[in-house]
């Protein structure tokens, strides 16, 4: 092995299983940890006077530089991941449909999740709303219906067709300082209006739950 303060000729040898301590008695694994954590340049009082430790830390720090570079590299999630997750979850959630009867040209079906989404977007536009989430209250029931009818249902039959009456739950968190009931009522009004005009649902019930305050 090299002398104190000298460059270490063979790091591999130093790191081989047999060696646990430097000539000064310092624990090699502890030094390696220090270097890997990025503190190779911050000496303890022993290290300040120990050339063995300083040489080892310098060497280990250099070894770990590419590891730290890779760790610091910016990673971005491919858009495909989020899209695939969303579509798989959609398949897992039992869908309910609202059927809009048209005078001619057939029927139009709108998924309850679309209705919930529109209600959510409407709620988010109201001043004083921090976050909003929407769901169809019928989802649970539709899940039960789906399971019960799974065996004797036509493969193309829609599950949980609900007609033109929609019940939507909105969970909102309001911003601190706003009058809670006024915000909730504004959310309700706006969501109902949006669902009537954008989806064409005649009877709409929007239940608003205020479950948090954002400060």
């Amino acid at each position, binding site marked *: 092995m090299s002398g104190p303060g000298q460059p270490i000729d063979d790091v591999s040898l130093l790191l081989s299983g047999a060696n646990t301590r430097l000539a000064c008695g310092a624990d090699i694994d502890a030094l390696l940890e220090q270097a890997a954590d990025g503190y190779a340049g911050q000496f303890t009082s022993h290290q300040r006077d120990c050339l063995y430790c300083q040489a080892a830390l310098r060497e280990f720090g250099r*070894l770990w530089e590419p590891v730290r570079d890779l760790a610091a590299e910016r990673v971005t999630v491919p858009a495909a991941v989020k899209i695939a997750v969303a579509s798989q979850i959609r398949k897992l959630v039992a869908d309910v449909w609202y059927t809009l009867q048209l005078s001619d040209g057939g029927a139009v079906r709108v998924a309850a999740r679309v209705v919930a989404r529109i209600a959510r977007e409407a709620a988010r536009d109201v001043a004083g709303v921090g976050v909003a989430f929407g769901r169809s209250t019928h989802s649970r029931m539709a899940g039960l219906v789906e399971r019960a009818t799974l065996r004797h249902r036509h493969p193309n039959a829609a599950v949980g067709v609900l007609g033109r009456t929609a019940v939507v739950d909105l969970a909102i968190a309001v911003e601190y300082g706003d009058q809670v009931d006024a915000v909730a009522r504004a959310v309700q009004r706006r969501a109902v209006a949006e669902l009537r005009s954008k989806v064409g649902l005649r009877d709409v019930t929007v239940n608003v739950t205020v479950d948090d305050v954002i400060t």
Partner: protein
Amino acid sequence: MGSEVDDAYLVRRAQEGYVDAYADLVDRHGLLAYRVALRLLGNHQDAEDVAQEALVAAWQQLPGFKADSSFSTWLYRIVTRRALNRITRRRVTESLDLLGDVSDAGDGPGQQTERNLTVDAVTDAVTALPPPQRVAIVLRHFEGLPLAEIADITGSTVPAVRSHLFRGRRTLSKTLAEWR
């Protein structure tokens, strides 16, 4: 928008059937899932598959999620487990892979900079570590997690994690020293 509420709030809403709340959790933590999978598996294709599987599995297991750990710790656990499954499965089929690993760097050879080579070398060295050491190294030195959280994620103890880290750091350092 939506960044003011904490994960626990989103988890509760998602458990109540507000699917969009889970979409927000995916927006927040999808990167974590993908990044850990990428470091553990070493290539983008496997990382994409595992991250996707893990995020869907987390949705399915959400009703059973208790708030005794954070959502991110819980997600780390799911991703790590799935990545390990893939590593073990891959090892069985590896001997049949006559064509070898296809490089997933889309760039032509002219674009292979020295930096890319370094990145590839470190990636190879990390993915050559035995699975327990690899998990410990990735969670500690790539994700910067404290030992106690790593123990929680891996269902292990702090001393066991420390010992995997010691061995992993030695092996990795030796590989890097030889490569230099």
